[in-house]
C-alpha cells in the first residue's frame, strides 16, 4: 500500500533529505508550509521533483502563492479539498517535521 508523506520542514542542507530515501514507487509527497522553500528555483530539493520513480508531489496553492514560488513541472498545486482527496486516496500517512 502507498503512503502520503507530509513534509513540514525547510531544507536543512544541500543534500537529499532523509524523507526522500523513505519513499517508494506509488507514494506521494505533500510539501507544506516552509517545506516549499526546498523547491525554489535553486532550492536543494528542486531536482527531486519529479523523481525518476513515479512519486507524485503536491503542495497547497496558498502556500506557493504566499511564498512567491512558481510550481515546477511535476509538482501539483491543489486546494484544501485536494489535500483531503489525497488523504482518502492513500491509506497511511506519515509526517516529517
Amino acid at each position, binding site marked *: 500500500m502507498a503512503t502520503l508523506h*507530509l513534509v513540514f520542514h525547510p531544507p536543512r542542507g544541500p543534500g537529499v533529505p532523509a524523507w526522500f530515501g523513505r519513499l517508494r514507487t506509488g507514494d506521494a509527497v505533500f510539501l*507544506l508550509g516552509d517545506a516549499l522553500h526546498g523547491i525554489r528555483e535553486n532550492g536543494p530539493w528542486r531536482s527531486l521533483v519529479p523523481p525518476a520513480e513515479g512519486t507524485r508531489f503536491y503542495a497547497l496553492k496558498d502556500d506557493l502563492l504566499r511564498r512567491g514560488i512558481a510550481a515546477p513541472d511535476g509538482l501539483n498545486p491543489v*486546494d484544501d*479539498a485536494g*489535500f*483531503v482527496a489525497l*488523504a482518502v486516496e492513500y491509506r497511511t500517512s*506519515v509526517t516529517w517535521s
Partner: protein
Amino acid sequence: MYKVLVTGNMVTFALLINSAPHSAQAHAAFRFARAAVGQGYRVIRVFFHGEGVYHALPPSPPGGSEVSLTTRWAELARDANVDLVLCSAAAERRGVWSGESGRAVAEGFRVGGLGQWVEACLQAERTLSFT
C-alpha cells in the same frame, strides 16, 4: 458555518495534533479538518497531545483582527459534530487543565485519556498526525 453533505459510506478521519497553535502543523490540521467536513467526510475525533494541548486555552475576547484557532476549532466542532479531546496528562503537565481545581478548558473541547485516541484510531479509516 460549514455545509455538511450527507453521503453514504465515506472515509472517516482521526487527527492527532502535537504542535502548539501558532505552528504550521496546527494550521494545516485545521484547514484539513475544515475541508474534510466541507466535503462531507466525517472527522470523528481530534486528539490534542503534547504541546497541542495549548489549543484548549480559552481565547481572549475578540477584538483584534485574528480569530484564534481555538475559536475556529470550536465552531467546526459545533457545526460538524467533531469531538475535540485533550490528553488529560499532557494538559495537566502544562497547566492547561487541572482535575482538582476544576480549571475550565475552552468551549468545544473536552478532556480525556489516551484510550480515547486509541479508540479513534480503531474507528477511523484514516489517521493523520500533525506533529
